[in-house]
């Protein structure tokens, strides 16, 4: 077993206030476990990526670097925000993932939510199973008729003979085909205003009442699913937070943005930018000055995002909630992805139009993975995927509402 990256003890902390000892440990873990010439997971084929993710998740888990924000008593590593940031920076720079594909749902979203809202019994039961992958989670929030207006969900759950019985449909469930369980937002009381009759239920997927169907997106791939519930069941105690009090639970689940997310995104975008710069600028000859300026604008925005990230990290390390600023970050980076992939298409011209299907390999949310080959096909695919960036995780319209209402204090739209 490798222990190079093991979480430092409290004693270490006192002499490692800037985290540089921790950084050195993470770097040596990476150096010992990545092959020579490693450029990032994006350089691997689909199949190799899958194998690598499995192995890498295991390595992170062994070294206590998987559930970095959880307390030690629940199997987490109890890292300080600065250490979490360092781990994220180093993994991003090296082009390796920080967990499996579904860990964002299990470790980040549900784990954090259970730590805040769950009962002690729920934490003791569910959290270790997330780490061991006995339970692999996906998310059931959006519905065909409830996207931006999430409180309008219609999937119903009723308590029947000591079990919740669920009927309805969820959509946009990422990696649902890889999951064993779904946390699902249900209407549990229709007689009260929409926000007050919602509960968050924990439900196994492997049962006759659940039908999971892949949803093919405009890219031609199917990383999302639709989930149909027909008298699906879960235990009466599989509810997170109060029954009918699930709305604030769901909101906090969506709000577990760690300060390092936006900072590491800038690292990934910088790699994208360098790939594009390499394609667009011929060091031997002249480059269209309009393209040069657009490249400059893209770089400008990457650096601005990096600085926004540094500022968010300062808040996070100081224990302040960044609040609605996360909406500002999301708006900023989603627009960057679209603007920059549009530029890539303009640089590539007909090459992008006639690019084959050797698109982005594997999964790359929201940016391309480090090591992605610098081909017309990857940029064409990146461009298509970028259309989703201003829609998922709160559309740009919703983000602007949040920014205007919570950061600027403008009045709400009459509803």
């Amino acid at each position, binding site marked *: 077993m490798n222990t190079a990256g093991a979480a430092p003890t409290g004693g270490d902390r006192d002499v490692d206030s800037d985290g540089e000892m921790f950084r050195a440990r993470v770097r040596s873990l990476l150096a010992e476990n990545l092959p020579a010439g490693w450029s990032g997971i994006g350089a691997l084929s689909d199949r190799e990526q899958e194998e690598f993710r499995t192995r890498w998740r295991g390595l992170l888990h062994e070294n206590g670097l998987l559930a970095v924000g959880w307390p030690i008593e629940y199997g987490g590593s109890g890292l300080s925000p600065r250490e979490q940031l360092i781990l994220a920076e180093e993994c991003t720079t090296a082009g390796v993932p920080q967990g499996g594909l579904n860990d964002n749902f299990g470790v980040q979203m549900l784990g954090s939510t259970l730590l805040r809202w769950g009962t002690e019994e729920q934490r003791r039961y569910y959290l270790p199973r997330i780490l061991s992958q006995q339970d692999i989670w996906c998310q059931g929030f959006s519905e065909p008729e409830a996207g931006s207006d999430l409180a309008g969900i219609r999937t119903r759950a009723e308590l029947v003979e000591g079990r919740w019985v669920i009927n309805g449909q969820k959509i946009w469930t990422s990696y649902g085909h890889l999951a064993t369980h779904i946390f699902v937002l249900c209407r549990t009381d229709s007689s009260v205003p929409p926000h007050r009759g919602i509960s968050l239920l924990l439900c196994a997927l492997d049962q006759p009442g659940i039908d999971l169907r892949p949803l093919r997106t405009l890219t031609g791939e199917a990383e999302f699913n639709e989930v149909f519930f027909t008298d699906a069941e879960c235990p009466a105690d599989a509810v997170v937070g109060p029954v009918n009090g699930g709305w604030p639970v769901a909101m906090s689940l969506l709000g577990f943005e760690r300060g390092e997310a936006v900072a590491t995104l800038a690292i990934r975008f910088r790699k994208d930018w360098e790939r594009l710069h390499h394609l667009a*600028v011929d060091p031997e000859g002249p480059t269209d000055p309009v393209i040069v300026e657009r490249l400059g604008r893209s770089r400008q*925005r990457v650096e601005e995002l990096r600085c926004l990230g540094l500022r968010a990290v*300062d808040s996070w390390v100081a224990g302040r909630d960044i609040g609605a600023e996360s909406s500002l970050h999301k708006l*900023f980076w989603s627009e960057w992805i679209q603007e920059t992939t549009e530029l890539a298409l303009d640089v590539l011209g007909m090459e992008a139009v006639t690019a084959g299907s050797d698109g982005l390999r594997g999964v790359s949310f929201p940016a391309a993975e480090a090591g992605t080959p610098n081909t017309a096909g990857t940029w064409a695919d990146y461009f298509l995927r970028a259309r989703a960036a201003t829609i998922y995780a709160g559309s740009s319209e919703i983000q*602007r509402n949040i920014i205007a209402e919570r950061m600027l204090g*403008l*009045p709400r739209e*009459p509803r």
Partner: protein
Amino acid sequence: MTGVSASLDDDQIQLQKTLRAALSRHCSGPAQLALATGEEDFDPALWKLLLTELDLVGLAAPERFGGGGAPLPVLGVALMELGRALYSGPYFSSGVLTTQAIVGSGDEAVGAEILPGLCRGEVLATVAGLRDDGPDGLPGVGGVVATAATADGDGTHRLTGVADHVWEAHGAHRFVVFASTRDGVGCFLTHPDAPGMLVERLPGMDLTRRLSRVRFAAAPARPLGALDGGSRALARLRRIAPVCLAAEQIGGAEHCLEQAVDHAKRRHQFGRPIGSFQAVKHQLASVLMDVEAAKAATVFALGALEHESPDAATMVHVAKAAASDAFFHAAGALIQTLGGIGYTWEHPAHLYLRRAVSGRAQFGFPSAHRRALGAEGGH
């Protein structure tokens, strides 16, 4: 950790509060308009406030020359507040451009001679001979040519040519002039009463930043620093001036956004505040995004320059491009949100728009800075 931060620290936030409170009393809309359209070059009472009560004039000058020795991020806080207040006067020309040029030249004797009086507010000074349209968006030198050791053989340097767009030249007691010499960039000290000097005010779109044309006809001047004093001074200004102007622009942008938000909350049409309409609130949300990102980048750039970190040159381009765009965007949004009232002479919104326009062009257009970023490549 490099020690460079994108956030203001507690002391800087305290300074910001102090300055904001003091300046708000002196920089109301009517006062701004009166100053912008009046005959006065600047408001002496406001200058006295900056000098005595706020102790800002020598803020970033070295302590050995009577300055406050403040690091650039602190100077940036002052500039943000002055920009917010649309301060009109010789602060930037004396306290930033001249001070940094003299410090950059390495000429300790001229520093000791000029800067103590400048820090006490007795000497007003400005910089001439910079062009704003260098290929990389950063200031270059043009217009003024210096010749040395003329016929009288006393080694006097003489300046000849035209320096355009000189900030706050009226009322300046000293001019630091960048000029082309046989040996490259030279930096010279002269004064307005020197023979062969003519200062003409230029008509200006920006009513709160007075720009002049200075003509030199064999005007005598003293060189600053050793042989490379000029290029050293220029190198320092090339980096510091765009970022300091960016800081001022952030303040202006924040003020415009706040005024727009305030109006959107109070103004009712169709029976509800206009700020509840998405068409209005989304525009202002977009402005906030640009302003916050530009502010984080500008604060970081000031720190990067102070610490001479490797990304400082990149961040100069980022900060100036982002802050210039954010201010222009915010000033435009303010006038649009205000509607008709924003198009009147009496409302100070146009003064901010005018300042935003002039600042875009000074020390490099956003587009020029972006071309520099685009050409630069990875490192």
